[in-house]
């Protein structure tokens, strides 16, 4: 489609009214996807966006691509069937923390394990919004909600750790309001061959306002965010602090500078590390003891499921050029009755 006119952000905006609550972080994510798609020159007719259920899952209705608003937690299954049968399509999955980590946990981990060539945006607001504010599998322990008036006793999931454990080949984290960074992550996910997942910290200003404020607000940002950049030392707080791995491989925060720890001792981020243990260790860095990493945790190459299935098919077809209905029916012992 080289002759197509260059698309703009608005070309990805459908005629449907966006119905999220005013102030919802979803608006920004939608805008960054539209902007990034325009800049990437994504072909609308060859793109399919599939969602599950929840606030974020209204997303396909607001895009001008092909789309399917499916059922709760199962979006990766529809996307897998579509991608295997139509590998040339550009397939994205939109999901939330309840959709992908609670009711749909099984499908999420199996998508990672298979490395289906899907792009998954996981909107994490640490709450059930559409059902009016119950605690989610990423809510902090002790969370008081309509379903946990005494405080939740559940230990939360960290989405990045879960997907790394399931064998994800591309894992990133970004923030709804950090528009430039989010666009960069979307473009990186788009370029990755295999399952790419971005956990997006998303504010629900109605049911869980300020869920990530300790990390995202202007004053705390420098101190609380660790920007992961491949090949660069893991520095934060304006370069005055960094992450060093001790002899046991445990990361620790150190002061960097003259008379303190030297820059050479600071670990340089390597997103291509074969072992997921490294990225998993980074995923354990959390507020309040550590700065929270944002950026690409892991980007490695592994054969994709859809490619593998279709290569098998091509081999099978090549090995049996005589395959037709007649040979299908005449298998085994055949006899003639007169």
């Amino acid at each position, binding site marked *: 489609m080289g002759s197509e006119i260059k698309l703009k952000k608005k070309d990805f905006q459908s005629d449907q009214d966006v119905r999220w609550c005013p102030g919802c972080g979803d608006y920004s994510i939608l805008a960054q996807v539209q902007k990034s798609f325009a800049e990437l020159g994504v072909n609308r*007719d060859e793109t399919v966006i*599939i969602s599950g259920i929840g606030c974020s899952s209204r997303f396909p209705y607001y895009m001008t691509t092909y789309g399917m608003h499916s059922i709760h937690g199962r979006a990766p*299954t529809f996307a897998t*069937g579509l991608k295997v049968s139509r590998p*040339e399509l550009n397939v994205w999955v939109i999901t939330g923390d309840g959709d992908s980590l609670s009711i749909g946990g*099984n499908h999420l981990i199996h998508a990672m394990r298979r490395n289906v060539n899907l792009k998954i945006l996981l909107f994490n607001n640490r709450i059930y919004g559409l059902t009016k504010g119950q605690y989610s599998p990423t809510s902090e322990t002790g969370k008081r909600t309509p379903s946990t008036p005494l405080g939740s006793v559940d230990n939360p999931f960290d989405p990045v750790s879960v997907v790394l454990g399931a064998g994800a080949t591309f894992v990133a984290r970004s923030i709804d309001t950090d528009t430039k960074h989010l666009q960069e992550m979307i473009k990186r996910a788009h370029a990755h061959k295999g399952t790419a997942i971005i956990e997006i910290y998303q504010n629900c200003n109605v049911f869980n306002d300020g869920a990530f404020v300790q990390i995202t607000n202007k004053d705390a940002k420098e101190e609380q965010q660790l920007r992961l950049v491949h090949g660069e030392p893991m520095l934060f707080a304006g370069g005055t602090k960094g992450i060093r791995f001790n002899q046991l491989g445990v990361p620790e925060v150190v002061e960097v500078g003259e008379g303190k720890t030297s820059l050479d001792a600071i670990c340089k981020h390597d997103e291509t590390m074969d072992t997921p243990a490294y990225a998993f260790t980074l995923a354990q860095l959390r507020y309040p003891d550590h700065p929270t990493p944002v950026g690409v945790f892991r980007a490695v190459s592994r054969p994709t499921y859809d490619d593998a*299935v279709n290569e098998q098919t091509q081999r099978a077809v090549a090995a049996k050029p005589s395959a037709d209905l007649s040979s299908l029916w005449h298998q085994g*012992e055949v006899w003639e*009755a007169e």
Partner: protein
Amino acid sequence: MATSSTPTGQDMSATPRPIIEVDSVVIRFAGDSGDGMQLTGSEFTKASAVAGNDLSTLPDYPAEIRAPTGTLFGVSGFQLQFASHQVFTPGDQPDVLVAMNPAALKTNLPDLVTSGSLIVNTAAFTKPNLTKAKYESNPLEDGSLEGYQVFPVDVTGLTKECLKDSGLNAKSIDRCKNFFALGMTFWMFNRPIEPALKSINDKFRKKKPELADANIQVFKAGYHYGETAEIFTQSVQVKRAEIAPGKYRNIMGNSATAIGLVTGATLAELPLLYAGYPITPASTILHELSRYRAYGATTIQVEDEIAAAGAAIGASFGGSIGVTASSGPGVALKAEAMGLAVSLELPLVVVNVQRGGPSTGLPTKTEQSDLLQMLYGRNGESPVAVLSARTPGDCFDCAIEAVRIAVKYMTPVVLMTDGYLANGAEPWRIPKLSDIAPFPAKFRTDPENFFPYERDEKTLARPWVKPGTPGLAHRVGGLEKDALTGHVSYDPENHQKMCELRRDKILRIQQELGPIEVNGEHEGEVLVIGWGSTYGAITKSVNELREGGAKVSHVHLRWLNPLHPHPPQPQALRPTPWTARPARSRCGTVARSRSPGWDAT
């Protein structure tokens, strides 16, 4: 052995022996689940098919893969009826029982006809085996088998003797003994041995050539033993059945379903994506389809039943025919996804190979108890098309029909079979290419005045658009759709309209269905209405009753939603004084859901 035994005294083999000619024989092979009874039964079946008999089979095996040896619950059986006339069932009571151990005798003897033939492996009647089978004394010695024609044979010992120079270990030798029993029955019933020799060779030659040789040797030894040991005083001949001319092969229901699905997809000119999750008794559909990549079928085994339904729907959205199969408990898990397919109005084929329920129920036993689940087991008003196969071979035709209707009407179609059809076998007349008309799927490509939920006037189907088609990008989903644009709509009048459209679309399928066939007069005293795999049993019973002068007729439903349209003769299905609706479930679900008032959907 049924009817008209006439000694003919024909000399069929080297040794002269009297030959009894009979119309039909029911034989059952029973042994430990590790004794290879299913293989033995299917070899006998193949040979009988090649001999030109009509036949019907019933495998009956335990859920345990290798139950403890010698136990009553570990008995595996395979029953077969073969005849010189048309056969509708595997038979009620076996005429011949092959019992490989005491447990097999104990569990199967009550079914054997009075004075039936009983071949027993005497070597297995040891003290420990008798105890495991809960026999207080040895039935071979205590006179309890009087009245049966007992043929005691040391199958184990003879097999050992036969293979003593084979170099195989004792365990492997012991596992060949089923072929000795098979050989004896081949002699007894004049089966041609070539198909079995070829089949054993095909099965074992590549992987374990030494076993191919051993099994062939033992099989022949069993055959010759029958000939020379003179314990069988006569041999039995069942003549060829008169069947329609053409090429035949033996087929099991799940195989017929699998090749029917591939045939349907080919005729629709669509790639087929089958997504499945292992479950008894549906798994063999997945196994068989997995071999047909070159024929346009892609199979994926996914993480659960829901994912299987989801992947199939995703493929249908992409322009393939999405298919999934399962059994009752698995289909229950797919219900929400099937409801989504109703809302999306995409083609989807769901095969339910029914088994006994509720819950896990009886995985290896058959039942017809999921009809209400398939008709109504979804939230909201979500009608789907439902049809049912009546014989193993009929699964082929029904699978093609399921694909055709799903594509033409843009709807999920449920094909109901069951464990009895899935594992049962019958000779199947291979169709000719010219017998079956293609029905190529149509995709919308014209972007002018495109509305995703605009309807075909005749079928009420909405247009099918492949993602990737320029200018036709659109969104679908499980929220109620505007009846034309497909946009989300909460409007009550639109919802009413959509409910009616979805109902009417299924009703329109009646256009495709011919008038219902009635076996018997259109007016009688009793009308028997059946569906699915009870076809054989009902047909046989009704025919017998009619031969006895009873005014009984039979209607067998293929389509359960929608129902067949009224037959041309209005009186045909008027309630008769008696209406019986037998089914393989205690309550007879069709009786509750589908009365001859024909109030469909």
